[in-house]
Every structure is written in structure tokens, then in C-alpha cells.
């Protein structure tokens, strides 16, 4: 999929702007928290034998709008 030129130009402005910020600034501003149903609920430790098993769990258990599945 080819991006529209105006979109690409906007992206490049973002990238150049970010490049002027230090790693410290970028990390301090990039990690935010918003509550995500199920993921931010107990249990707070989850492990899966395979990535496929995790993907199936995510598709089954997480609200579709979180985007962890293959379609909304």
C-alpha cells in the first residue's frame, strides 16, 4: 500500500521532530497508561506455552476493539 504524499510528509515531520528529542525525553513521554479491560485485570502474571496459544487467548478473551485479534 503506497502512502499519500501528504501523509508521508506529515510523518517525516514527526520523525524529524522526534529526532531532535533525547532518548530520555522520548522514553519519558512515550509510555502512557490507559486501562485495558482484562489485560489490566487480575491475574497480573500470565504465561503461555506458545505465541499461538497467547494469540488464541487474546482473540477469545480481549474485547475486539483493543485490536489484539485479527479483525474488529
Amino acid at each position, binding site marked *: 500500500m503506497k502512502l499519500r504524499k501528504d501523509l508521508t510528509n506529515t510523518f517525516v515531520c514527526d520523525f524529524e521532530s522526534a529526532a531532535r528529542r533525547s532518548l530520555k525525553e522520548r*522514553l519519558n513521554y*512515550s509510555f*502512557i497508561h490507559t486501562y485495558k479491560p482484562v489485560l489490566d485485570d487480575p491475574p*497480573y502474571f500470565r504465561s503461555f506455552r506458545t505465541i499461538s496459544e497467547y494469540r488464541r487467548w487474546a482473540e477469545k478473551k480481549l474485547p475486539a476493539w483493543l*485490536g489484539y485479534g485479527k479483525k474488529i
Partner: protein
Amino acid sequence: MAKRFDYRQAIELAKVFKKHNVKYLFIGKSGAIILGYPDTTQDVDIFPEKTPENCKKIVSALLELKFPLTKTEQEEILKGKDFVQIRTGPFDIDLVFAPDGIESFNDAISRSVEVEGLPVCSINDIIKSKEAAKRVRDKESLPRLKAFRDWLLKR
């Protein structure tokens, strides 16, 4: 309860992982952000080498970073699971031992970069992994991530 990850914690993680000789790479959007990609994310994704030895070192390192892992939780990491999600520590972390689209840790590390002491997957590997995962959230972010890759490679 989710906690925010910040620069100080990134440096601390790298310091403690190095002390314990953990073999790992930052991956996912957190990896892309370290490479310079302007975006937001909620947790840290780490791609560690999946060996019994490395898993033991990860457990030791996480305990030193004050992750309150129970004996059972430590066993789960030592068992060699492909994906471990921890939300009980000073920050949220996912241990992704077998990310989609990446053949092996050794291949990834040969292509990796280091940013101020933080070892990160190459932007191409981050993109490959997201393409292979085929999730809606990744499909949405891929065009911008690819534009970033193209811009980064031209620099």
C-alpha cells in the same frame, strides 16, 4: 495495576540485565520508540534468548529489579514458555521468547542495534514481527512504522 515505564527504568533494566548477563533485545513498539519512532505504548516488550541458562538469569535480574515473582511465577519463566506477561512489578513487561516473524534470537541479535546501552531489534525485524502477528492494532500502525523505517535508513 499497570505502572509507567520511563528512561530511568530503561537504564536500570539495561544495567541489571547486563550485570546478570541476560541476552535480550527490546522489541515491539517500545523497541521502535528507542530507535526514535514517535509514538506511545503501554508496556515494555523484551525478546530474550530462550535457553534454560538465560531464563535463570532473567529471573535473577527481575528479582533484583524488584519484580515480586512468586516461586510459581519464577518456575513459569524457567519452564521455557514462549510468552510471559508480568503486571506486578515496577513497570509492565512482556517477555516474548518467540516473536512472530523472527527465525531465531541469534539472527535478530546479528541485525540488532544499541541505543545508549539499550540493545534493540532492528527496525526491519520489528516490522517483520508485527506483519507476521497479523493483529488489527499492528496493521493500523504498520504504514507509519514502514515510513519511519524508510526515513531512518535514508539518514
